[in-house]
């Protein structure tokens, strides 16, 4: 050791608060919506741009936490220069777009989509769709008497291609018996508008289980497990994320289904309490829907970063212990 020179000297303390490095301004796009000029980020969809102006665009198959599939076509808007209407949920904004969201063409298409759904699907547990139907003056009755419901498994067995020609005296529907094959949730495909959300949530958008997919073709298209087996035989892991995204109540907690059947389901008597799931360290937010001091349903808010609305089987369905069954009997089942 020859000298006492310090071989490392820390840099002087900054005299000002450090700032993040400068980011380039996100590119933005100018467009016109209903006559109003608006500037939005270049990667926004028309739906987002409409939202920024406070325009309420109806959607059924769209959800913030899923990839847009643009199949319900209720969010269509009129784009100047385009031959057809365009779906707001998936179409990304382009410079100079001139969009009308409430033109006669748009209103007609939205009304007809709602009439088509209302005349073929049971929308009784889809308040949002009912509200849209009222807004656009949809009249599903004008297609005639609904056809008699199909028998159990009948729609699932339909093959693509030729069908029996109707005589036009009744309007074809997807009405069919409810599928009740497990204790956790039911599938009432008479209420299914085929929005693809459950398939997306079961697949790459959330769960990566791929237990269900769209099968069949045309009006006979339906959601199905592999080979149409009951859920307990399928790949389903009962995360319930399909229930969480279903917009029409076609997928429903067994508890809700039974209460509805008994005429006991009453949302005005329900409270909703947000808490953290007790099962593991991830810390998912649970919303407990409680009626008459019993948990009747569990959801998770879409805007929570931990879950984005998705849960697993434990958080979704593992709440029975709260109701405090007979602990002794649980611990010692033999008596």
């Amino acid at each position, binding site marked *: 050791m020859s000298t006492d020179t310090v071989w490392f000297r820390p840099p002087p303390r900054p005299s000002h608060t450090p700032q993040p490095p400068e980011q380039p301004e996100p590119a933005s796009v100018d467009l016109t919506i209903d006559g109003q000029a608006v500037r939005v980020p270049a990667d926004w969809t028309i739906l987002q741009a409409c939202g920024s102006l406070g325009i309420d665009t109806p959607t059924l198959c769209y959800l913030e936490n899923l990839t847009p599939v643009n199949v319900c*076509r209720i969010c269509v808007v009129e784009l100047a220069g385009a031959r057809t209407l365009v779906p707001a949920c998936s179409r990304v904004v382009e410079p100079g777009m001139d969009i009308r969201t409430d033109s006669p063409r748009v209103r007609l298409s939205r009304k007809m989509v709602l009439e088509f759904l209302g005349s073929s699907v049971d929308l009784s547990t889809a308040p949002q769709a009912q509200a849209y139907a009222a807004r656009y003056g949809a009249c599903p009755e004008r297609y005639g008497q609904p056809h008699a419901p199909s028998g159990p498994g009948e729609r699932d067995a339909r093959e693509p291609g030729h069908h029996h020609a109707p005589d036009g005296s009744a309007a074809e529907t997807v009405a069919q018996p409810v599928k009740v094959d497990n204790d956790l949730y039911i599938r009432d495909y008479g209420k299914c508008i085929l929005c693809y959300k459950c398939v997306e949530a079961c697949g790459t958008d959330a769960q990566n289980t791929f237990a269900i997919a769209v099968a069949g073709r045309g009006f006979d298209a339906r959601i199905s497990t592999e*080979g149409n087996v009951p859920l307990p035989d399928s790949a389903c892991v009962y995360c319930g994320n399909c229930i969480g995204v279903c917009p029409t109540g076609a997928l429903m907690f067994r508890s809700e289904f039974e209460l509805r059947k008994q005429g006991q389901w009453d949302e005005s008597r329900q409270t909703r309490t947000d808490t953290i799931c007790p099962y593991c360290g991830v810390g998912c937010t649970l919303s407990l829907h409680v009626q008459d001091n019993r948990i009747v349903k569990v959801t998770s808010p879409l805007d929570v970063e931990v879950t984005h609305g998705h849960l697993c089987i434990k958080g979704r369905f593992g709440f029975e212990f709260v109701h405090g069954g007979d602990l002794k009997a649980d611990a010692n089942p033999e008596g």
Partner: protein
Amino acid sequence: MDLHFHGPKPTAAEQAAVDSVLGPPTSAWAGGARNIEDEGHITLLGGHAARSRRDLLLPALHAVQSRFGWVPPGAVDYICRRLTVPPAEAHGVVTFYHLFSLEPRPSAVVHVCDDIACRIKGAERLCDELEHSLGPEREGHWKRSPCLGCCELAPAALALDAGESPRATALAPATHADIMGLRTSGEERHDSFESLRRSVPQCGDPKLRLLGRIGQIDPESLDAYRQSGGYTALGRAIELGPEGVIREVLASKLMGRGGAAFPTGRKWDAVAKAPARPHYVVCNADESEPGTFKDRVLMEGDPFAVIEGMTITGFATGSERGYLYVRGEYPLATRRMRLAIEAARAAGLLGANVMNAGFTFDVELRSGAGAYICGEETALFNSIEGKRGEPRNKPPFPVHVGLFGKPTVVNNVETLVNIPLIVSLGGEGYARVGTPGSSGPKLFCVSGNVARPGVYEVDFGISLTDLIAQAGGVPDGKAIRAVLLGGAAGMFVGPDKLDVSLTFEGTRAAGVTLGSGVVLVFDESVDLGDVLARIAAFFRDESCGQCVPCRVGTVRQEELIQRLRSGQPIGSRDDEASLLKEIGQVMRDASICGLGQTASNAIESALATLDPIPEGKSSR
């Protein structure tokens, strides 16, 4: 991906059928034996490799279907294991195509076309006879089918025989005796190429540019093709270079012949300039539009021209791989195209270093499995990729994001057959043929009540009247009731509008469409209400079911037509007419793809001017 299998184990025969397409399994991941030395004790190799072959799902399902006559659950599970496809998704794919069955079926099934052209040529009588001899349709020995693309020889049937050496035979004109004879003989039927002359009434005319070889030379002989001038255009294209070829195609003003009439040169230019790689060429040979059969005749009669057109396309757009998607109902076209691909490959005209010019291009043939919608370009991509044939939303367009997400040029068979002609004549020379707005020769599929139905090659500009006259006019001195122009997705033309000029601009001015070149003639004896009901049923059957306007709209449209036919409208007939307008409007405005957007065209055009379902004449 944690896949769940619960079904029966595949039998040895099922495994063999699948392995005939996929090859033997190479790892435990793909359902083979576990090789500890390679894979170790913990990992399973091959997940990514297996998933990357998902596009073999359809070929594997075809192998199983044609081996057993149906798709047994054990075979589906085995395919899923091999390719790492979730079984639920495979179920969705199998149930999408009407040539696959998940229920056991007889090994021999006759598909009988009861679509528009065959209907007016006795298809119903044929169905009645088959019901008498083979039992009711639900027993599965025979089945009604949408248009089989043999309208010039109607009525048509397709006999499929599953087994170790499966057979597929198209019969047209099909008689009851022919069908029964084929079932008992058990022999493969070989049509000579001369029989194609029945489909090309102009055969032998030296002025033919696109149909010149059909029925004249052996379509299975590469030498015959080359002796008749084949492959000189590819040589010339190589001299011009890729940019030069695109320049000629742009100058030719060639418009796509599949129905949408998009300028081919612009499509090519966009793909050639797209930075993403690789690029793909797709030949859309999923010709399923009722009344259309030109692509079948081209593939059966001049398969090398299709290959040469594809090769020039690949050369010009910088693509090394082409896919030829032939509809599953065209057994002879499939066989001849396959032979042509093999012969071209053996002669160094496909593969690495084509014509020793230093570029690579090869073609793979894929078969459809019975779905009209797969003729829509993005549905076709999904079908090749092993998914349900549901159209994608556009934009992005295929020239940027196409097959496997890469820039793709997709052209119809007839479009591609024009390419060697353009290269030979030069773009400007080609543009002088036809009219200024519609260049080149055009094929028309003339069928129905005419004396000489078939594919006709004419220069753009001929009038509908002259074309029908060229086909011998309406026989038996009957008057024309209507003409369906452009197929089921096209429009009806009444007798007052027969002077329409058959060009893109002429039909547009007349408010009709050229579509894929269908000219289906109906004489006064035809019940147009019955034809409309068939068109409505067709769209209800063939809608993919993805979007609401088309999925439900096609059903409501069919119900409405049937109410009119049975004389029981809801409200007045005028109420029904305005309801149909609204149904048509939402399908046209809000459907994802062209199927829904055109599903009411023919029906609305007929109801507007032709009074196809006269009041008080209930047909039931």
